[in-house]
């Protein structure tokens, strides 16, 4: 296997040729916040938090999908990258409804971690307070759209690992939302195996186990 040497913030590291740049960052001891990335799932480069500056590239590149090559020089912590990361996390907080204090994922939330990592002490874009729904139709799990950041990890884990294809995205732009089955209540989707993988990979409190939520018992189908 060919091994390439590249520089991350001036530090030389060696990784297999073609490995994602994230691996080179790890080798250099640099950790960037990531939200759509999951090591067991195909990368989609959607959250744009792992953008790094690659010498010679016209614009920042996402470390999760960009292949390592010999002699690359990366910068991971420039003022422009910091500003971008912070604003992207702010956009996520403003786009959904994320009241950490009353969220079941408080303290165990990758969005919250990302906010701390990028130094988001406040949100400078207007909150949009979107009216969203909670899907409590599944006997074991719960989907709270307010907390969904549309990272598509659940879509991919259900497709690539469980093979059940329960999840998909519907509509587009700011109206994009996660749907189960053919836009059905989750509990009505026959293909769901109730494996819980989507809950396990959800970075926020959007997909949770019912028993974690102080909620009246499931009323039954």
């Amino acid at each position, binding site marked *: 296997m060919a091994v390439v040497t590249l520089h991350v913030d001036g530090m030389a590291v060696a990784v297999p040729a073609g490995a994602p740049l994230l691996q080179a960052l790890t080798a250099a001891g640099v950790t960037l916040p990531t939200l759509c990335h999951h090591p067991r799932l195909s990368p989609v480069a959607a959250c744009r938090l792992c953008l790094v500056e690659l010498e010679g590239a016209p*614009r920042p590149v996402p470390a999760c999908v960009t292949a390592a090559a010999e002699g690359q020089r990366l910068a991971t912590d420039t003022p422009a990258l910091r*500003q971008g990361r912070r604003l*992207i996390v702010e956009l996520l907080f403003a786009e959904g409804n994320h009241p950490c204090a009353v969220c079941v994922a408080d303290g165990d939330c990758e969005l919250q971690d990302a906010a701390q990592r990028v130094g988001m002490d406040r949100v400078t874009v207007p909150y949009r307070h979107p009216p969203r729904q909670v899907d409590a139709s599944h006997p074991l799990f719960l989907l709270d759209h307010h907390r969904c950041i*549309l990272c598509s990890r659940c879509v991919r884990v259900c497709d690539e690992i469980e093979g059940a294809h329960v999840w998909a*995205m519907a509509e587009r*732009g700011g109206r994009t939302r996660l749907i189960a089955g053919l836009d059905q209540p989750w509990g009505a989707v026959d293909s769901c195996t109730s494996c819980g993988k989507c809950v396990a990979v959800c970075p926020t409190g959007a997909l949770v186990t019912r028993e974690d939520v102080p909620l009246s018992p499931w009323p039954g189908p």
Partner: protein
Amino acid sequence: MTPAEPSAVLLRLCDASGCRAAGATALAGALAAGLEGLTSGGPPPRLKPVGCLRLCSRGPLLAVDRDGISTLYGGLSPAQMPALLALACGRGEPAPIRSAALAGHVVDHRQPFFALQRPLVLETCGCVDPTDLDDALAHGAYRQLQRLLATATPAQVRAEVRRSGLRGRGGAGYPTGLKWETVALQPPGPRLVVANGDEGDPGAFMDRSILEGDPHRLIEGLAIAAYAVGARQGYIYVRAEYPLAIARLRRALDQVRDRGLLAGTGAGSFAFTPELRVGAGAYVCGEETALLASIAGGRGIPRQRPPFPAQEGLGGCPTLINNIETLAALPALLRMGGDAHAAIGPPTCPGTKVFSISGAVVHTGLVEVPMGTSLRTVVLTMAGGVPDGTGSDGGIKAVQTGGPSGGCLPASLLDTGIDYDVLRVLGSSLGSGGLVVLDHRCAMPELARQFMAFCAGESCGKCVPCRAGTVQLADLLDQLVQGRASAADLERLVQLAEVVQRTSLCGLGQTAPNPLFSTLRHFRGDYLERLQPLAPWQS
């Protein structure tokens, strides 16, 4: 325009979407009825539906070819058809055909709008019946393909296109020959070609006109591209909003399949099978990776490049994606030869370009001019400037180019020669060729808001900066237009727009702030006058 054979009168009725909207279908009915009732001797006049006759603002357009002279009529109504037929077929009185009843409807085809055109891509659009393969063949369709199949190797075709200097007409202006080379030189294996007809920019209708007016030219171009890069399969992707173009293309594809025109033996045996794919109403599918996802039957969502489609496209195969106009330029280009094509227009950006002109101008419609023609020539001399416009700039405030990913050029830059590089330096972009002319009633912040709202609505929702950022930008522009924004808000707007531009995944998000930036650059005053006045303690 090709004159008809002497003595036979040919009525060429524009049967493209624009003239249909202006009443061409009713006109066709009245003409057909009139022709049936005709009793005079001599060869009966022939009614021929054709593609775009260019001057859309005077539609429905009808060209009468008689004795080698062509007269163009505009704005006719069905009630005038008997008078027109009487004139067209009347004995004695030679052409040009005029009468008091129709005088106001004669369109002068020596005016600059027509005289300055240099039709190559559109050379047979308006002459050929788009539904008739034999007519297309009589006008030279598939001749270049057959010639190349018999006499040239794929490498020779690529070399010719490289020499021609042709650049992609979709908007990015990437050298076509280089793209072909990239696809052709990938490791051995199947390759695919795709024609991108997802023309979505507001104010752009070049590709639609080509598809509606001369579908065989596109099919020939696509087959030539397939031969040059070694593809045996291809797709033509057309947006669902173009039903007439789709119907004509479908028919044309059936015709060539039945005749076996896309195959040949010679320098290399070749059989090409293109398929039509219809979009589902997403602007973002004009982006090439989203387009491929849509062709594959998935959600039209872009993915990060590289790998580029030329390396890994449909089903992982190297895939060549060219715009409709790029492909339709090939037959004429290869007929004249690469060097002759390279001699048209500026050396860095040769060839002709089709523009669709709309907005505040006297003449709206379709023009094809050499690259490098000045904006002034196109929008003032040819299109006539703003109706009742005064001054050296004809009342023009700005010209919007490139749609939601482009920008606005102020009247002071009208002498700019249009090409990809020059417009980019000026903060706009040529885009696919839509020119929207704006007069002084147009407020630039409102225009920027309009385009930002368009991008927010068309964002696919995959990456965060585009999905959430364009929504915030559209809201901020709303506030600004309504006079509820401060200088600090404007600064914030620019900051956020820069982040969206820098961090978005695909071209849609990366270029969404362009109209904002270009109007801020050239019309900053329009923005400043909308800002809330500073409170006394702030100044």
